[in-house]
């Protein structure tokens, strides 16, 4: 792939991702509503919400939290760019971890007990899903010999055939990242939670919009990562990613929110065991 091509891909992805992310969030709300027997909002509702947030008057509870919101956005964007440039998956996930940390620090920098406890829980969430993502990258390394996205795209056979248990573990991480039940402990999709909006509590207006758009990038990035599990041909991978997305919505609707201790237990118990088991199986069979 030439440099021009990869630049075109990155710019295209950067431009398209908010659109795709917004539509996915719209689909999420519509489908959730239909599963609950409701009409649901129009598909474009996330964009209306975004527009409304941008148009709100400016109010911040602490300047540091604004800086951290920008940090979250820019770091997510960096991770996104690196991913679509076909770079090292480990670097992508580390930068994504930094982004998550920025969100937590933003919440820590305010004096609200809600935001602070939300930040505590956000860090716990990172503790739960980061090992999965990093170990998944390691598993991909074992399979392809490299950590880069390029190598996966160039590999001959779909990863899913060799790493099915890793895929399951990544689904757990996706659930945590999407803030869906039973893992919506730091900031729920809807505010009926003891911490209201957790880490987002002290954000409003355009900074909340910024976080929202970063969240869309993050969603697209994670789904793209899932699509990598079937990169030949890529459209199957995209379908699998969409399937994973709908599976999360389904699980969200059949489960209550559980406690953080359960989340850490489940993600480590299921996630890490599955990945390790997968790697052991691979080495035994190979």
């Amino acid at each position: 792939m030439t440099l021009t091509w990869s630049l075109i891909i990155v710019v295209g992805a950067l431009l398209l991702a908010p659109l795709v992310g917004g539509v996915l969030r719209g689909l999420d709300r519509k489908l959730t509503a239909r599963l609950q027997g409701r009409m649901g909002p129009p598909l474009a509702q996330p964009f209306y919400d975004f527009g409304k947030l941008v148009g709100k008057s400016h109010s911040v509870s602490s300047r540091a939290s604004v800086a951290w919101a920008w940090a979250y956005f820019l770091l997510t964007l960096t991770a996104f760019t690196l991913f679509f440039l076909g770079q090292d998956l480990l670097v992508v996930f580390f930068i994504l971890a930094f982004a998550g940390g920025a969100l937590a620090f933003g919440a820590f920098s305010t004096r609200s007990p809600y935001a602070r406890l939300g930040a505590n829980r956000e860090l716990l969430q990172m503790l739960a899903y980061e090992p999965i993502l990093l170990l998944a990258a390691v598993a991909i390394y074992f399979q392809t010999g490299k950590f880069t996205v390029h190598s996966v795209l160039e590999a001959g056979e779909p990863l899913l055939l060799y790493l099915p248990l890793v895929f399951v573990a990544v689904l757990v991480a996706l659930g945590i990242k999407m803030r869906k039940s039973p893992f919506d402990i730091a900031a729920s999709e809807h505010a009926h939670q003891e911490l209201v909006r957790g880490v987002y509590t002290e954000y409003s207006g355009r900074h909340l919009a910024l976080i929202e758009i970063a969240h869309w990038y993050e969603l697209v990035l994670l789904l793209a990562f899932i699509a990598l599990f079937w990169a030949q041909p890529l459209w199957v991978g995209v379908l699998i990613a969409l399937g994973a997305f709908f599976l999360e919505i389904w699980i969200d609707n059949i489960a209550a929110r559980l406690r953080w201790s359960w989340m850490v237990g489940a993600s480590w118990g299921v996630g890490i065991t599955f990945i390790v088991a997968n790697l052991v199986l691979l080495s035994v069979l190979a």
Partner: protein
Amino acid sequence: MARVTFPFGPQHPVLPEAIQLQLTCEDERVVEVLPVIGYMHRGIEKAAEANLFPNNIFLCERICGICSFIHALCYCELMEGMMDVEVPPRAKHLRVVWSELSRIHSHMLWLGLLADSFGFESLFMQCWRAREIILDTLEMTTGQRVIQSSCVIGGVRRDINEDQEPDVRRKMDAFRKEINAIYPVFAKDYTVKSRTVGKGILPKEQAWSLGTVGPTLRGSGWDYDARTLGYAVYDDLGFEPIVEDGCDSYARMMVRLHEVVQSLELVIQALDRMPKGDLAVTVKTFPEGEGLIRVEQPRGELVEYARGNGTAYLERLKIRTPTFSNIPALLVMLPGCELADVPVITMSIDPCIACTER
């Protein structure tokens, strides 16, 4: 992490009404609780003294929207008792029908809110949609969905006539289907159980001595339900209180869930046995002396005391609402729990702050 005080409320999405729980937390563990009430006091007891006594029915109904019919029923039964008015049997049966319907709608609302408090949004929607059938039935028979205004001193104002009865039965059948679909989710779902079982323990002895009433008391193994005292026609309907021994949030939830099913049967029974006859008798006297009544609301026992002086105005009307006696239970249940369990435990007493503050 040092101790942090959470101002939980008065405006909090989990709490349906304005109450503040000042939670002192160490990390995720609650160590101290101070409930702060007084955000919605309306002075209804005072207003009742300034009203003509028959008009107080409409005032009492507005103590709380959810249990409005039973508030009106309680006031009417109290006045009838004080004036020795014999209510026609058809009116008594209709009162049972409507008060059980409002119990169902209150419990369904509560089940929905409980589901919401542990983040089960689809279950919440399911409960509230099922509740809509009951609200429709109430609107169809009494004319209004929430504030029914159909009880008067001496009887009732509305009738369920022959045209409507099959409709009501059809709605009840439709509701039975809904509750049959909802029941296993609450009773068996792993996530629901892991959020409620063993949470908010209220030991049997303490449930009694703290003065809790209603499902909070019955969830701790006491078989006390004011309906066994036999107002309206409950003594003829063969009513048995529902008791669970779990002493936790799950037990309280199951009491209410079973009560929904039981209330449904009571509605059908009352419809089956409904005699023909007058709806109300005219009342010409004024209340005199003192009266005291206990009535079972969805949230527990409601105690009303009235003192009349032979005029059209009451000297005193005292209303002890169920949540007023259930709030002390929170002081026992909340300390030591995890912050994530606070919404579930708070909801498990079914707080009705509008009732508490009148």
